[in-house]
C-alpha cells in the first residue's frame, strides 16, 4: 500500500473526450499515455516520479480495461529492458524512473535499446531535480541522451504542454525509430493544473496480440554485423528523420515579436521546462503579461536533443545577443550552439552561464537576476529606471545572523520510525566496542548519518551499501558494518552486495533494515512486503533469499523496538568467531504506513464500542533532570523540550507531545542504555468490559486512599 492513494483521482482517467481534466502533472501524464494507445507501462519508483508509479498502480483496473500491461519493475534496469517489446513489435511502451540515478542503473538496457532502434514508440519518462530538496546527486539526463542518441523532450511545465509532449514523444519515436526520453522537473510532476481531454485509445496491437504472432528481425540484434550498421543508421537515417519531424510538427515554439526594431535585436533561448521561470522574470520586468505575451523574442526548446541548427541560426539572424537558459551543468546546449554559430560564421553574442548560475536549480531569484543583468548589458532601453539602477539595500547583517541562528531541519526519521531503535542499538554497541567503519545505502535509513546518530560514512548507490565496504572484507581489528534497506536489497543488493560478500568470503556485518515497503519512495510494496497485494506476489522472505546465496550466519529480529535484543545481536555479530558474512535482518513495519493502515480501523472499532488499547509515552517532568541523554539516542519529532517554569531548574526537561504513536522506543532505550526512570507508558483502554472496569475501580480507590493518607501525613497538598 503506497503512502498516497490515488484511488479516487484515477477515476478522472475515465473522463471522456473534450472535457476539462483537473489534477497533478503526473495524473495528466498518465491520462496522456491512455489517450495515445500505449500498450505497456512500467517503471521504478523514486521522487520526482514516485507518484506516477503510484498512479499507474492504482489505475490498474483502467489499464486492464484497455488491455494495457502494467509492470512494477524490480529496478530501472528491468524497466528499461521491458522497452525491448517495442523493438520488434509496433507497440507503444512507456517506462518511468528517477533520473539520473535510475538512468544510471538503466543505462545498459538504454544503450542496447538505442542501438537496436524501435518500431513502436518507446517513451522513457524521467524525473529530474536540481533543487535543495533533491535526494540525489545532480547530473544531467542530457548526457545520456547524447551518448546513446536518445531524443530528449523538455516540455513547458503546464498540463496541456506536458500532455502534448507525450503524444509528440511517441510519434517522434516512431518517425525516427529511436527511443525518446521525456524529462520532467519535480515541480512539473506535482503542478496542479487543467487540460482538455481526448478519448482513451486501446493499443492497436496489444502485448497479447504480439504473443500470438512472435516476430524477430536479426538486423535488430546488438551483435556483429548488425550493430556496426546501427551506428551508421543512427546518423544517416534516424537523426535526419527526427529533425524533419521536429521541424514539420513545430515541436519547438516561438513567442514574442517576430520583427521589432526595439526588441528584435536580442532574444532568449530556453529549455521548455524553464519557460515559466523565464516568463515570471519578464513579467516582473514589465516585459511580459500574465498570459505569456512577451516583448522579447523567445525560442523555446521543447526538444533539447537533437538541436535543430536551422531553427537556431534563423532565430539568431539579425540579433545582437541571445541568452541561453540551460539548467544544470555541463552546458551542453550552449556549447552546441557555439559550435553552430562558429561554423555558420555568425557574429551574434552568445551568452548563458555567464549570466545564470553554472550549476544548481534556476530559481525565480536566479532567473530574475540573470535576465536583468543580460538586458542591462545588451538592451538597457527595455528596462525601467528602477530596474536599470535599482536601489537595493545592503544586505541586513541582522538577517545574515538570523540565518545562522535558525536551526537546520534536514529530513529525518518520522515519529515512531522502527529504524530509530536500530541505530540507537548500533550507537550503544559502538560505545561499548569502539567506533567502526560503516557504510550507508539509499533509503530512509540514510537519515542515520544525521544527528543524533551520525552513523555511516558513504552512500554509493541503491543496494550497494555492503559492496561499498568490499575493500574492508578481509577484516581486521574491528569488522566493517554496512546498512542495506529492503528496497535496496531487492533492487540490486542480493547479488551485488550479499552474493559478492559470500563469494569473497567477507567477514563483515550487514544490517538489513526491513520496514516492509520501499518506504523512502512513498511506501510501495516489494517482494518481501507482508501485505497481500491483489496483483503482486509478496511475502517472499529476505532471510530465505540470503540463505539461498550462501550466508550461514543470519539473525532475524522481528521487532526492532526491542533495543536490548538488537544491541546484543549486533554485539554478537561483531564479536563471533563464525566465518563469512554476518547478516542481521531488523524488521518492523514502517510507522507511517502502519498508522495509515491501523488508525482508521482503530477509530472505527472504538466507535463501534470494541475494547481498544491505545498506547502513548510520557515523561515525568519532575523525575527528568534535563540532561537530554534520551534525545541523543532518539531524535523522535514527538520527543521535544519543555521549560517547566521551575525557578530551581536551568535546563528544559524532556516532553512527549500528542503526536506520539506509542512505538515504545523511548522506554526501550531508557532501559537498554540505563538512562533514567522518567519515561512511562500510558495505555488508554477504550470501551473496557465490566469486569475490567470493576477491577480498575477497586485498584484506584485503594491507591487514592494510600495517596491521600501520605499527602496528609507528609503535609502536602494534592
Amino acid at each position, binding site marked *: 500500500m503506497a503512502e498516497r492513494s490515488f484511488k479516487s483521482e484515477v477515476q478522472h482517467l475515465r473522463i471522456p473526450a473534450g472535457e476539462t481534466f483537473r489534477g497533478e502533472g503526473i495524473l495528466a501524464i498518465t491520462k496522456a499515455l491512455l489517450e495515445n494507445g500505449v500498450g505497456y507501462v512500467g517503471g521504478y519508483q523514486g521522487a520526482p516520479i514516485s507518484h506516477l508509479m503510484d498512479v499507474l498502480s492504482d489505475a490498474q483496473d483502467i489499464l486492464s480495461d484497455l488491455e494495457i500491461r502494467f509492470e512494477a519493475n524490480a529496478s530501472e534496469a528491468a524497466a528499461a529492458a521491458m522497452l525491448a517489446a517495442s523493438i520488434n513489435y509496433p507497440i507503444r511502451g512507456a517506462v518511468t524512473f528517477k533520473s539520473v540515478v535510475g538512468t544510471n542503473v538503466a543505462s545498459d538496457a538504454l544503450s542496447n535499446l538505442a542501438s537496436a532502434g524501435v518500431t513502436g514508440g518507446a517513451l522513457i519518462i524521467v524525473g529530474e531535480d536540481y533543487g535543495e530538496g533533491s535526494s540525489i546527486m545532480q547530473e544531467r539526463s542530457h548526457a545520456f541522451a547524447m551518448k546513446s542518441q536518445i531524443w530528449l523532450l523538455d516540455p513547458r511545465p503546464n498540463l496541456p504542454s506536458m500532455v502534448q509532449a507525450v503524444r509528440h514523444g511517441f510519434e517522434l519515436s516512431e518517425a525516427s525509430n529511436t527511443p525518446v526520453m521525456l524529462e520532467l522537473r519535480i515541480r512539473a510532476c506535482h503542478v496542479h493544473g487543467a487540460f482538455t481531454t481526448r478519448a482513451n485509445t486501446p493499443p492497436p496491437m496489444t502485448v497479447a496480440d504480439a504473443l500470438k504472432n512472435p516476430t524477430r528481425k536479426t538486423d535488430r540484434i546488438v551483435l556483429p554485423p548488425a550493430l556496426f550498421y546501427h551506428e551508421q543508421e543512427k546518423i544517416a537515417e534516424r537523426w535526419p528523420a527526427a529533425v524533419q519531424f521536429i521541424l514539420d510538427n513545430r515541436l519547438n515554439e516561438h513567442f514574442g515579436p517576430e520583427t521589432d526594431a526595439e526588441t528584435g535585436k536580442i532574444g532568449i533561448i530556453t529549455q521548455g521546462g524553464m519557460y515559466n521561470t523565464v516568463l515570471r522574470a519578464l513579467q516582473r520586468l514589465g516585459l511580459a503579461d500574465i498570459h505569456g505575451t512577451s516583448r522579447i523574442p523567445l525560442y523555446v526548446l521543447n526538444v533539447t536533443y537533437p538541436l535543430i541548427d536551422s531553427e537556431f541560426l534563423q532565430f539568431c539572424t539579425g540579433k545582437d545577443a541571445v541568452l541561453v537558459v540551460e539548467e544544470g551543468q555541463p552546458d551542453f546546449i550552449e556549447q552546441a550552439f557555439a559550435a553552430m554559430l562558429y561554423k555558420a560564421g555568425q557574429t551574434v553574442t552568445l551568452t548563458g552561464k555567464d549570466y545564470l548560475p553554472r550549476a544548481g536549480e534556476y530559481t525565480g531569484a536566479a532567473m530574475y537576476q540573470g535576465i536583468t543583468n543580460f538586458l542591462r548589458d545588451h538592451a538597457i532601453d527595455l528596462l525601467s529606471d528602477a530596474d536599470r539602477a535599482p536601489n537595493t539595500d545592503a544586505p541586513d547583517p541582522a538577517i545574515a545572523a538570523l540565518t545562522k541562528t535558525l*536551526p537546520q531541519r534536514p529530513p529525518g526519521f518520522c515519529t515512531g520510525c522502527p529504524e530509530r531503535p536500530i541505530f540507537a542499538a548500533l550507537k550503544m554497541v559502538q560505545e561499548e566496542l569502539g567506533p567502526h567503519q560503516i557504510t550507508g545505502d539509499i533509503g*530512509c535509513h540514510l537519515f542515520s548519518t544525521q544527528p543524533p546518530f551520525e552513523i555511516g560514512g558513504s552512500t554509493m548507490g541503491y543496494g550497494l551499501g555492503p559492496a561499498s565496504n568490499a575493500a574492508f572484507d578481509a577484516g581486521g581489528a574491528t569488522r566493517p558494518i554496512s546498512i542495506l534497506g529492503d528496497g535496496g536489497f531487492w533492487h540490486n543488493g542480493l547479488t551485488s552486495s550479499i552474493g559478492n560478500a559470500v563469494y569473497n568470503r567477507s567477514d563483515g556485518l550487514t544490517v538489513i533494515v526491513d520496514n516492509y515497503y520501499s518506504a523512502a519512495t512513498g511506501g510501495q510494496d516489494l517482494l518481501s512486503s507482508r501485505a497481500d497485494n491483489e496483483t503482486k506476489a509478496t511475502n517472499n522472505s529476505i532471510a530465505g533469499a540470503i540463505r539461498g546465496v550462501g550466508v550461514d550466519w543470519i539473525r532475524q529480529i522481528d521487532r526492532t523496538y526491542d533495543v536490548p535484543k538488537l544491541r546484543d545481536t549486533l554485539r554478537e555479530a561483531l564479536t563471533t568467531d563464525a566465518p563469512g558474512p554476518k547478516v542481521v535482518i531488523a524488521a518492523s513495519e514502517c510507522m507511517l504506513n502502519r498508522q495509515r493502515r491501523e488508525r482508521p480501523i482503530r477509530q472505527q472499532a472504538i466507535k463501534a464500542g470494541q475494547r481498544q488499547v491505545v498506547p502513548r509515552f510520557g515523561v515525568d517532568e519532575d523525575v527528568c533532570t534535563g*540532561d537530554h541523554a534520551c534525545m541523543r539516542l532518539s531524535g523522535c519529532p514527538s520527543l521535544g523540550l519543555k521549560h*517547566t517554569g521551575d525557578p530551581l531548574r536551568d535546563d528544559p526537561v524532556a516532553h512527549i507531545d500528542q503526536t506520539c504513536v506509542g512505538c515504545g522506543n523511548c522506554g526501550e532505550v531508557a532501559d537498554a542504555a540505563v*538512562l533514567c526512570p522518567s519515561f512511562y507508558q500510558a495505555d*488508554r483502554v477504550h470501551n473496557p468490559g465490566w469486569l475490567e472496569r470493576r477491577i480498575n475501580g477497586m485498584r484506584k480507590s485503594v491507591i487514592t486512599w494510600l495517596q491521600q493518607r501520605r499527602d496528609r501525613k507528609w503535609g502536602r497538598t494534592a
Partner: protein
Amino acid sequence: MTASFEHSGLIRLAILAVGGQGGGVLSNWIVDLAERNGYIAQSTSVPGVAQRTGATIYYVELLPDTSSPPVLALMPSPGDVDIVIAAEIMEAGRAVTRGLVTPDRTTLIASNHRMHAVSEKVVPGDGVIGNGLVLPHIQAAAHRLICCDFAAIAADTGSHISASLLGALAGSDALPFDRAAFEATITASGRGVEPSLRAFGAAYAAARAPAPSPSPHMPAPDHAAPRAPDVAHLPDPVQDMASAGLARVIDYQDTAYGQEYLDHLASAARADAAQGGDAHQFAYTSTLAKYLANAMCYDDIPRVADLKTRSRRTARVRDELGVPSDAVLQLTEYFHPRTDELLSLLPTRVGLWVESRPALVRGIARLFSKGRRLRSDRLVPFLMLYWLAGQRRRRRGMLRHHRELAHMQAWLGCASQLLPLNYDLAVETLGTRRLIKGYSDTHTRGLAKFDRVMQGIALVQNRTDAADWARRLKTAALADVDGTQLDGVIQTIQSFSGTQAAE
C-alpha cells in the same frame, strides 16, 4: 499587452511547514477554495525525502479566471510573495531569511509554537532557540503579521494545524473569499470535517482578535510558591529562591531537613554580607539557595518512587493525556536501577562492606540489576513503590546520603573559601552544581564534568578574570555530551597557566 502583470490580480502564497504538519492538505484546500470561487489555481511542492520531518515549502498562485490561460510560476521568489503561512515560528524566520517576507506586500501568518530541531534537543544544557530571537525580525519584515499558537488551537479542538492555519488565513482577509466559502471547502473535503471546522473557527477568531499576543504559549510555573515566613530573615533578593528551595527540600525529606537548608543559607548570607553582598544583590546566597536545594534533593530510588506514586502525579498524567478521571489507564514505569544505586540504599557501613566485596556485588547485580517494567496502576507494583517512597525516613543513614553530604560539603567549602578572594568566582563555583544531573551513566558523566570544571577553577582562581573562565568552563561542559568543548577550554587554561608557571 492584454493585461499588465502588476494589475492582473495575481495572488502568490507560500506555505512553509515541517514534514508531517499537513502542508499538502492546506495547499489542496486553498486550491479547491480558489477553483470553487472562479479563480485559476496552480500549486506545486517538492515531495520526497524532504517531507520526512524536514523543512518544506508549498507554493500556490491564484488568478481570477479569464478566457486565456495564464503563465504562472512554480516556485516563490524573494520579494514577490503576497501571503506567507509558516506552520512554526522558526520556519517563519526562515521565510524572512529567504526574502519571501517583505514589508511592501507580505501578510505573514505564523504559528508561534516551537518544534525543536534535533540540534537543539541533543545539547546537554539548554539548546533551545527562543522565539525572542526571531519575533523582532518577522515583525519588521512583514507588511502585516498574524502570530498565534495555532498548534495549541488545533490541539485544543482535536484537529490538525492545517485546519487552524486555514482559519487564520480566512480571518486575515488576505484572500478575496468569505468565511462561508472557506468552510464549504472544508466540508467538501469530507474527512475529519467536524474537528477541522472547530479549529478553523477558533483560529479565525484568534486571527481577528484586536491585538494577538505574539508571546509564545508558556505553561504557568506550577512550582511558584508564596514566600515562606521562614525565609524572612534572609536578605530580600534571596527570599523568592529560598522559598522555592525550602519548599522543595521539605517536600523531599522533612521540616528538619528544611531547617538544615535554612541554616546553610543563613550562614552564607552572613558571609555574603561581610563581602559586600548588598552590592551584588546577594548573588552568592541566591545562587546557593538554588543549587543547595538541588544538591540536597538528589535523585535516589525513594525520591523517584515518591514522585511516581503521588496523587498529583496521577492527576498530571491524566491531564497531559487528556484522559478523563474515570477512564481506564494502564501505566507502565520503565526502571533500570544499577547495582550501585541499589547498594546506596543500604546503611552506610553495610553498604561500604558490601562494596568492598566484588564477588558479592556481582551476585547482587545478577539478582537485582535489570530492566523492570512496573505497572503502577496495579496494586502490588504500586505498593512496592509506595513502600520504597516511605524509605525516605531512613535516608539520612543511607550510604548515598553519606556520599552526597560529603560531596556537598566539599563544594560548599570550596565556594566559601573563594568568597573573600573573588566574589564572582565564588558565585560561579556554586553554579557549577548545574552540571550534576541525570541517573546512572549520565550522572557519573555529570560528576566527572563537575570535577573537571572545579579543577579548572582551581587553576584560574588567582586571576582577576577567573569568574569569566569559570563561566566559560561551565558553558563548554553543557554544550556537548563527550566534553570535547570542555577539553578545549581546559587546554587553553593549561597553556597559559603553564606559561605563567614558567615565568
